């Protein structure tokens, strides 16, 4: 028991969890609406898209990089798919949009991977470039506009629910979307890959020390390339979910989301310098951001505060993480290295 407590209090996740609990008690006290069935289901619903993105961003940050291109990547992959299917009056099942989105996501991810695996330039600068290429292709070459009618199968997927939660007092209902299962599935696969495969351990090794990883026998370039392909696939799945749930394709809807997602990953205790981080932390970080985002309305804070509070969250979150890195004997290691 004592061992468990010690392990808990040393884990970053535990403190994020405490913050979430404290925050929800405050929100509950102010609004009386937080611990209602439908608010909790709403939170789960709001977590699906940022949660999927966060899994991808987490993998990149663990590898010591940073990716700001995934919202543009997802928008382009899903826009191209939706445009093609709508123009061809596609009436079939969900398998084709899903397949197209995954393939496009993989190709665009490979485009990222081509640069990130071969250049010594910081990945931020690379993905800043590719993000603009992606959104430029979508808005310029494909002349993206809002597509009001997405294929039936996609819309059906977006509105399908696992169960409906009804608030007994107010009568408000909230839907638990089927796509929540997709988040669970992606989490499970990512957990397995990061924990139990050489590829996943390689990502951690590269983030810890790239030269050491190469000398230990990891194929650094190969791992980096496929890492970005996988992240492309996960991001495009998130894009598909968002479009399906909205019931329409809004090309610029996702753009600008990268900061919120990176903030979530870093708040969850993933070291910004790479090499450490857990999916539990990532999900807690995402939950924290979603709670803050959703509850501003409940508590009655004007939405003008949203961007300010997000910036503050990023600075405080990364600041705590940076101070921890400095405290954990990095000074000594820096001398030895």
């Amino acid at each position: 028991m004592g061992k468990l407590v010690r392990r808990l209090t040393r884990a970053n996740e535990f403190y994020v969890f405490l913050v979430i609990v404290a925050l929800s008690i405050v929100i509950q006290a102010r609004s009386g609406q937080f611990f209602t069935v439908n608010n909790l289901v709403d939170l789960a619903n709001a977590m699906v898209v940022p949660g999927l993105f966060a899994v991808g961003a987490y993998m990149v940050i663990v590898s010591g990089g940073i990716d700001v291109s995934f919202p543009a990547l997802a928008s382009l992959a899903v826009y191209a798919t939706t445009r093609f299917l709508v123009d061809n009056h596609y009436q079939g099942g969900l398998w084709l949009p899903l397949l197209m989105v995954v393939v496009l996501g993989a190709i665009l991810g490979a485009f990222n991977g081509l640069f990130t695996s071969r250049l010594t330039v910081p990945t931020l600068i690379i993905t800043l470039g590719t993000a603009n290429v992606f959104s430029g292709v979508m808005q310029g070459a494909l002349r993206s506009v809002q597509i009001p009618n997405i294929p039936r199968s996609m819309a059906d997927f977006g509105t399908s629910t696992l169960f409906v939660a009804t608030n007994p007092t107010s009568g408000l209902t909230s839907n638990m979307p089927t796509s929540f299962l997709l988040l669970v599935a992606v989490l499970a696969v990512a957990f397995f890959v990061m924990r139990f495969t050489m590829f996943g351990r390689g990502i951690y090794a590269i983030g810890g020390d790239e030269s050491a990883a190469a000398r230990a026998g990891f194929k650094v370039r190969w791992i980096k390339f496929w890492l970005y392909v996988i992240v492309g696939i996960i991001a495009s799945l998130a894009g598909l979910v968002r479009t399906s749930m909205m019931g329409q394709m809004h090309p610029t809807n996702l753009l600008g989301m990268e900061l919120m997602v990176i903030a979530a990953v870093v708040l969850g205790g993933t070291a910004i310098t790479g090499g450490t981080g857990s999916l539990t932390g990532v999900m807690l970080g995402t939950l924290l951001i979603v709670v803050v985002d959703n509850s501003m309305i409940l508590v009655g804070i004007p939405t003008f505060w949203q961007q300010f509070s997000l910036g503050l969250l990023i600075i405080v979150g990364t600041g705590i993480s940076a101070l921890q890195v400095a405290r954990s004997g990095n000074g000594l290691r820096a001398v030895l290295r």
Partner: protein
Amino acid sequence: MWANLTESKSWRAVTRDTHIARLVTILLSLVLIFAVVKTEAFLNLRTWQSMAIQFPEFGLMALGVMLTMITGGIDLSVVGIANMTSIGAAVVMLSIAPRGADAATATMAIALAIGSALVAGTAAGALNGFLVATIKIPAILATLGTFELFTGIAILITGGKPKSGLPPLYGQTFAGKILGIIPVPVVVFVVAAVLIAILMNKTAFGTKIYMLGTNAKSAKFSGLNTTSLLVRTYMISGLYASLAGLVMLANYNSAKADYGSTYTLLAVLIVVLGGVNPNGGTGRLLGVVLAIGILQILSSELNMFPNISNFYRPLIWGGVLLAVITANHLSGRRSSHHIAKGKGPRQ
């Protein structure tokens, strides 16, 4: 951090002559294309004047980003600082000299507004420097966070709406033309660039930031006060960003929280195109100034083809950025090959 000595040596070799020569060639050929394709516009003074009004906006930001990148960091908050401070300046002007105020009040209001904007910009830069140097948050994340923070403050002040109705005197002086020919923004830019040149080449500060960017650890062990150096670098970046904000305020005659959203990419692109090593330690002001010229001419040439939609711009800027870093990588690898042979992969 990433740059080791072999790499920076090769970078210096590239930037000393080849890179500058390459940039000059690109610039001249773009000017030549301009002269041939649109001779009429090329010979018109107004074309050049409108360019000289435009480029200081992102050029000033690029100068700040350049300094931070030489130290091995980056400043992604420049657009946020520019918008926040220009909104602050607009608020100061409007509160002291509302519509219809007399000339003396307006002059005082403008002077106060400019002063407070520059102070606010420097303070914002100091916050960046504090986060990067003292808290040791990687510059990318720290300045992305403060970008959100500053933009958030700008939204809080304005409620997301544009601030306009400034005293006409402000636009007349800041966006006006000296002797009716030379636009004021370009004069501001030239003075700012000369100050940076002096700072980089004639002061100890300049030498120290190169050393810090080449190897932060050895700089620290050589007794440099790296914290204070970094804070001062980000303060200059913030100051220049607020200057860019004042130019934008004059050019648009209004301020809004989301103006200049493409300038972050443009500033980074300029600095990398100008030959500054994104890992720090090397880069020359001349290269960056040439890169500013190249991008302004390229941008004006894109304007000449109305059938190329504005949405292609991100595609072109992003594509140029990727092409430049790839080319730098290839030429850097060629010239450093014999030195770096037998070493493990660099990060």
